[in-house]
């Protein structure tokens, strides 16, 4: 089955649960295992939360969530036009966070990487960030 869903929403924290809920519903027709569904929800939650809190902080803008299914291959893209990441390698390091004062664990990228089959990060300071994740369901 091939299908896609493209959405945009403002960077509000209420949209974190909306985004992971959309992802869960989107893959439901494939009857995924409970664990796979949970993994996808968690990875989407991480990427969208990052776009909201690091990408836009308190500024306005749009977060884009794209879900794409080709057969049983899911591709998730989360895009923001916010702050961008200076050093992507460093940002992906487990336990690295630029905001330790807020009790962040710095585990977002590590979770996306291990809960999905692949993770790609494109980013440039001042231009925004796109995170693409794939998983076979």
């Amino acid at each position: 089955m091939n299908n896609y869903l493209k959405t945009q929403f403002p960077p509000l924290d209420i949209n974190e649960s909306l985004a992971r809920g959309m992802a869960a519903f989107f893959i439901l027709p494939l009857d995924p295992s409970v664990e796979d569904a949970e993994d996808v929800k968690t990875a989407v939650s991480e990427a969208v939360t990052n776009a909201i809190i690091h990408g836009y902080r308190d500024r306005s803008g749009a977060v884009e969530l794209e879900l794409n299914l080709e057969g049983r291959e899911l591709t998730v893209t989360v895009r923001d036009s916010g702050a961008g990441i200076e050093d992507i390698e460093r940002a992906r390091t487990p336990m690295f966070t630029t905001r330790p004062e807020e009790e962040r664990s710095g585990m977002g990228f590590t979770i996306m990487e291990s809960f999905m089959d692949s993770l790609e990060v494109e980013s440039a300071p001042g231009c925004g960030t796109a995170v693409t994740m794939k998983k076979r369901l």
Partner: protein
Amino acid sequence: MLKEFIDCGRALVAVLEGEIDQRSASALRERIDIEYELSRKPHLVLDLTDVTFMDSAGIGLIIGRWKNVTSAGGKLALAVAGHKLIKILELGGVTRLVKLCPDYRRAVEECLR
């Protein structure tokens, strides 16, 4: 969300429910920290048996409480049911720091050991 606090002698139990993400974590942190301080108990148990979802914000919340409680000389223990949260708790390094128990009573016993 916070369901309730339970007074268990030398331990305070915070019963959480629903989803722990960036949105809910900051309010949870504040309520738990205030109650823990007011209770003047050394130990803290986070009962996660009714938590349906958790992301890295939950890891941050747990590790933050672990730091507070251990620096005050107490112990932190978790009540976790089923396998749902285990994967993220392991990946987040929580299982290396904190004991996981099947329910809050056993988590309280663990603190008192």
